[in-house]
């Protein structure tokens, strides 16, 4: 498959993650534009059924199956993936800039001396070469980056940057099950425990709708009306840094330059002023709603829809209206 586009997929508990569909969609677009074949790789333990699923997308599917790959480790996955790439010689390896992709791909790229454009928001083919869009300086500008040279290239793409589209017709790919030969002693780092977040929590970076609260919520108690709204919308809950630093919410809720970068369909900011570092984390949201009692709050400059009001009154009303809307549907 020398010269092909190889998409690194991710799974959890034997199910393909959404990010995989996003990157496969991009991979199909790029491989078509390059006139190159598309292949996919997935790693884990006991994940053979996924090979079949991926064969709808790609001409070749590599299933790296081993007990040693049951949970993600840098060492195990680096070895398995680097060996596969060395054997298959793709031109481009595409993956998601998820927590796994951000840990794994820089290391694999270094091992194989490839070029890596990381955390991209887009990728396209121009004059036969790859051009990536990289958000830099806290989303204040976007660098258009041409990947130079003939060598191996890696691109990681942020979650939610691509709208996943299922293949029209199954690609009918060939599935290769590979034992990656990872031994326990290869793993210098091991997972002792995985502590799940609060029950039912939707992961921010994967959410279609996010409702975030800021210092205007005045505390833990006040945050409840933001959470009620989120629940009614089936949304993930986010927070500004002020809320996190005050200890009202854990850091995993923080949106922004030193938190998470999110790109949902709908972002509701309640009691958030819209500091530049907060905007760095949410400015690519498709639709932004701001609720703030200060008409001069900078968030209104960015918001598609704004309501100047006390959030403690506006959020419950909004929750109620959405409940009514859902009842009608």
């Amino acid at each position: 498959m020398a010269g092909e586009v190889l998409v690194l997929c991710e799974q959890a508990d034997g199910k393909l993650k959404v990010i995989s569909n996003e990157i496969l969609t991009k991979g199909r677009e790029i491989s078509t534009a390059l006139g190159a074949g598309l292949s996919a790789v997935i790693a884990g333990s006991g994940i053979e059924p996924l090979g079949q699923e991926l064969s709808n997308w790609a001409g070749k599917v590599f299933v790296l199956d081993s007990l040693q790959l049951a949970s993600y480790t840098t060492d195990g996955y680096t070895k398995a993936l680097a060996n596969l790439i060395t054997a298959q010689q793709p031109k481009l390896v595409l993956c998601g800039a998820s927590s796994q992709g951000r840990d794994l791909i820089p290391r694999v790229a270094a091992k194989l001396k490839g070029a890596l454009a990381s955390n991209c928001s887009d990728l396209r083919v121009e004059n036969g070469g790859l051009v990536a869009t990289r958000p830099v300086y806290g989303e204040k500008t976007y660098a258009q980056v041409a990947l130079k040279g003939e060598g191996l290239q890696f691109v990681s793409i942020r979650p939610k940057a691509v709208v996943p589209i299922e293949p029209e017709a199954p690609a009918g790919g060939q599935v290769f099950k590979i034992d990656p030969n990872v031994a326990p002693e290869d793993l210098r780092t091991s997972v002792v425990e995985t502590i799940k977040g609060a029950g039912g929590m939707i992961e921010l970076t994967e959410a279609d709708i996010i409702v975030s609260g800021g210092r205007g919520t005045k505390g833990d108690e006040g945050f409840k009306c933001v959470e009620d709204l989120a629940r009614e919308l089936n949304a993930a809950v986010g927070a500004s840094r002020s809320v996190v630093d005050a200890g009202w919410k854990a850091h995993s809720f923080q949106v922004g330059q030193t938190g998470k970068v999110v790109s949902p369909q709908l972002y509701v900011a309640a009691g958030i002023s819209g500091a530049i570092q907060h905007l760095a984390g949410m400015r690519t949201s498709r639709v932004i709603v701001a609720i703030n009692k200060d008409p001069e709050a900078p968030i209104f400059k960015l918001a598609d829809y704004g309501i100047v009001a006390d959030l403690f009154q506006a959020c419950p009303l909004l929750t109620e209206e959405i409940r009514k809307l859902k009842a009608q549907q």
Partner: protein
Amino acid sequence: MMNIIVCVKQVPDTAATIKLDPTGKSISQENITYVLNPFDEYAIEEALQTKEKFGGEVTLVTMGPDRAEEALRTGLAMGADKGIHITDPQLAGTDFFGTARVLAAAIKTVPHDIIFCGKVAVDDNAGQVGPQIAELLGIPQVTAATKVEIAEGGASAKVNREIEGATEVLQTSLPAVITAEKDLNQPRYPSLPGIMKAKQKPVQKMTLADLGLNPAEFGSGASKFEITSMAMPSKREGGRIIQGDLPVAVRELVKLLHEEAKVI
């Protein structure tokens, strides 16, 4: 006793207004104040706490132009012991892997039991250099760490890291590269005596030649990337305030979100 290394980068202040220079391919340096990369503050703090527990020495390493020494002085004022500043005209435009190669070469010149980096540099937004240093040094890594507990004797550590919807607790052998997430600790501010003392602390200047690296392999000419242009974010048509009595405005908002924006 632990030899602790921290890689630090100087970046534009996150509050800075970014404008492009006339080429349109890089940012204008005008009116920009430079600071220590915010994630590197957490890395330094963790290094200082590690030294306080186990004894040893904290060495800061930076690669960058002359002004990058300010980032070292900030870290020295926080309490780090010494700095290495790799600076060389040939380094301008070096790509991420090139940066990692330079830093790894510098780290090899000193004893290192643990290496802290930031999770990401907030200017280039790469998040590559930490794991790449680890690969080049042939040691393990843990990225985006929110808690580090080094075992007695310093041969291993238990590290928490945030992943989607969960926290992972990892056990790693040392030496390793650990990259700092914001939640890791509360960085201290440099004290006044700290700032005074920092001026006297040793900073070793090094060039590519000093590190035994071939200058032709670095700089923009050797970079595997070319920035062809920079685009400012598309202006959002913001500022559409929905007027009226609150219950009416809220009803109108829901209608717009449903019928116009089609997001609910």
